[in-house]
């Protein structure tokens, strides 16, 4: 789960990482007041769940198609349907409280399009008003899980303020990677060693060491899959400050983290939230016209692959999870059917822990209840498959039956036209 910059900074600060003084606001007036409280000279930062905000483009309305997005991207002077190609970033400097209020008014409510948001962008509903810092040097620090090692790793670099993957490609020697022994943790002295290794100025070694140690503590406490400070800066008066921060919380740890207060559902796709509330394992909206309902993430991805290889395009990824509830299947089919792009539906269930008869019952119930008229290709196999097939046949409904994955994909592509 992604959280906002201001939330990440508050978690980091609670674990001893110095952050600039700042206030999160939702109106221009609040922005002005916050700026006044911070002495007037501030940074106004759009809070959305995506990186690249400074280089993003703020638009009044969403680009409705990918083609429109590409045209605007190519020509900054173009205007199309109220959307301009002019680049105005989501991070701005203001020299006074009045200026901060004016900048806030320009940003709030607009859509910010960055290389991470996709063409539709994300609506800015919140701003972080922060004091400006006199920056003498920029650095990078992050902690994440290395799956192969099975431990967290800390990654630091002298090249702060840039996309770290680009730094890795351009100057791999500028990146230091430190695996962390979970039992030893990351004590401050390791942080000081790391600061020396990065060649940081002598007066800040102590503070930088504390920042690294605090970053690791925050990573642990928040059950983070990623905790990143990019950049952290050394100021003209030799302080260290986390100027931008990003924190992702492991969804599997939601049961023991305060996710209800950290989550911002307005940043997420409405249909994806609906699927989650129905108890569906995972739903991701895509652009094609074949709705898919599959059990298991691997089989769901493989089903998408087969559809694409057969010349079709999936409208979504849907891993229903372990289905042993008829209602879950009904809800899943309803959500697929709500997608206006869908022309045909492919059901591919290979029951293990999931029971095929339960799926069949849910399919029949959903078609009757929601009056679904799209052609539905059904491929069922695995646990209780005979009973499942019997339910489908006895329903008298028109399903296109397939015995194997290849046939199922072909039938679905044909049915979608």
């Amino acid at each position, binding site marked *: 789960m992604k959280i906002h910059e201001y939330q990440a900074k508050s978690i980091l600060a609670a674990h001893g990482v110095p952050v600039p003084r700042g206030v999160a606001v939702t109106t221009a007036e609040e922005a002005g007041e916050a700026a006044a409280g911070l002495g007037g000279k501030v940074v106004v930062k759009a809070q959305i769940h995506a990186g690249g905000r400074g280089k993003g483009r703020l638009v009044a309305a969403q680009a409705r198609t990918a083609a429109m997005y590409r045209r605007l991207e190519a020509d900054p002077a173009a205007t199309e349907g109220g959307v301009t190609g002019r680049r105005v970033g989501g991070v701005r400097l203001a020299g006074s409280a009045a200026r901060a209020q004016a900048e806030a008014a320009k940003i709030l409510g607009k859509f910010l399009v960055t290389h991470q948001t996709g063409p539709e962008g994300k609506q800015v509903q919140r701003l972080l008003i922060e004091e400006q810092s006199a920056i003498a040097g920029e650095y990078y620090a992050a902690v994440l899980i290395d799956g192969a090692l099975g431990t967290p790793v800390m990654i630091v670099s002298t090249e702060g303020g840039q996309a770290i993957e680009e730094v890795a490609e351009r100057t791999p020697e500028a990146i230091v990677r430190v695996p962390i022994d979970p039992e030893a943790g990351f004590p401050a002295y390791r942080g000081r060693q790391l600061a020396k290794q990065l060649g940081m100025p002598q007066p800040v070694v102590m503070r930088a060491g504390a920042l690294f140690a605090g970053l690791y503590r925050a990573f642990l406490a928040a059950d983070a899959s990623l905790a990143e400070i990019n950049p952290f800066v050394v100021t003209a008066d030799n302080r260290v400050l986390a100027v931008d921060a990003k924190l992702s919380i492991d969804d599997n740890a939601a049961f023991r983290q305060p996710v209800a207060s950290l989550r911002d559902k307005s940043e997420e796709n409405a249909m994806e939230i609906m699927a989650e509330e129905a108890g569906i394992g995972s739903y991701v909206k895509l652009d094609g016209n074949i709705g898919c309902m599959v059990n298991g993430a691997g089989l769901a991805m493989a089903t998408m692959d*087969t559809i694409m290889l057969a010349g079709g395009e999936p409208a979504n990824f849907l891993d229903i999870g372990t289905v042993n509830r008829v209602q879950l299947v009904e809800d899943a089919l309803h959500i697929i059917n709500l997608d206006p792009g869908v022309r045909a539906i492919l059901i591919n269930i290979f029951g293990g822990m999931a029971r095929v008869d339960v799926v069949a019952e849910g399919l029949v119930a959903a078609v009757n209840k929601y009056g679904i008229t799209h052609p539905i290709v059904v491929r069922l196999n695995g646990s209780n498959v005979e009973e499942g097939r019997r339910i489908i046949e006895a329903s008298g409904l028109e399903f296109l039956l397939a015995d194997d994955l290849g046939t199922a994909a072909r039938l679905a592509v044909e049915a979608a036209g």
Partner: protein
Amino acid sequence: MSVLIGRSTRLMVQGLGTEGQNQIRRSLAYGTTVVAGVHPSFRGGAEFEGFPVFDTAEEAVAATEPNVCIIFVPAPGAADAILENVAAGVRLIVCITEGVPVHDMVRVRAALARSKSRLIGPNCPGLITPAAKCRVGIMPSAVFKPGRVGVVSRSGTLVYEAVDQLTRLGIGQSSCVGVGGDPIIGASQAEALEMFNRDRATDAVVLIGEIGGTAEQASADYIERHMTKPVVAFVAGATAPPGRRMGHAGAIIEGHSGTAAAKLEALSAAGATISRSPADIGLTMQRALREHGLLKA
């Protein structure tokens, strides 16, 4: 001979909730030897389906000498159950549970490194050895058939898919191992490949990977250096849009090495035969077996 489980398997089950009960009944019906259950404060009494149920793994191990434990404990307590089995000295621990926090798995991996236990999973379908009627998992046993092809997969349902295709072509399986779909797991794909490489009951292996992580590159490295048996590989998610989470926490494209293209390239260069479509895994293996004289044309 088989991989990890077989005729000498004495299975213990930890977590006798509804799903644990259902699945262990299926394993018993298949012919698997189940010697004990572990479920603290179990309401069903001291026995379930004819085997004794204990409050702790330690007691169960002392009384019944199991050599494999399958865990169905819900996610918040799953890592604790794994650690309990490591402490009790169980040699093979299979954790089916989905949704175990990754920070818990960091602690589990550290404990495993100091022990003689091996972990399969979590978030996996488990293992099966059809010839020994040994099922330590949740797979639909009807699609499996005794034979000489091994299957290694990150995804559970793709094990069933691949096995179904093999069985329909008359190609049986020696053992199948679902290693799990999470970012941190116990035994890796490459370790599973190594076991199949050494197993005298296995002629060839199907390897099913997925986008995300670098496990397939490690497998490719093992294949190139050590594998003496034909490997047919499929990597799911070639058409997944970059950057989107597709269910498995592990299935996130991170950098170039996480892409299906990079994984397929590494596996192909290492000598594996690639099945581009998941619908062709069985046919690709049939061809590979014929080419190696392991199946009559």
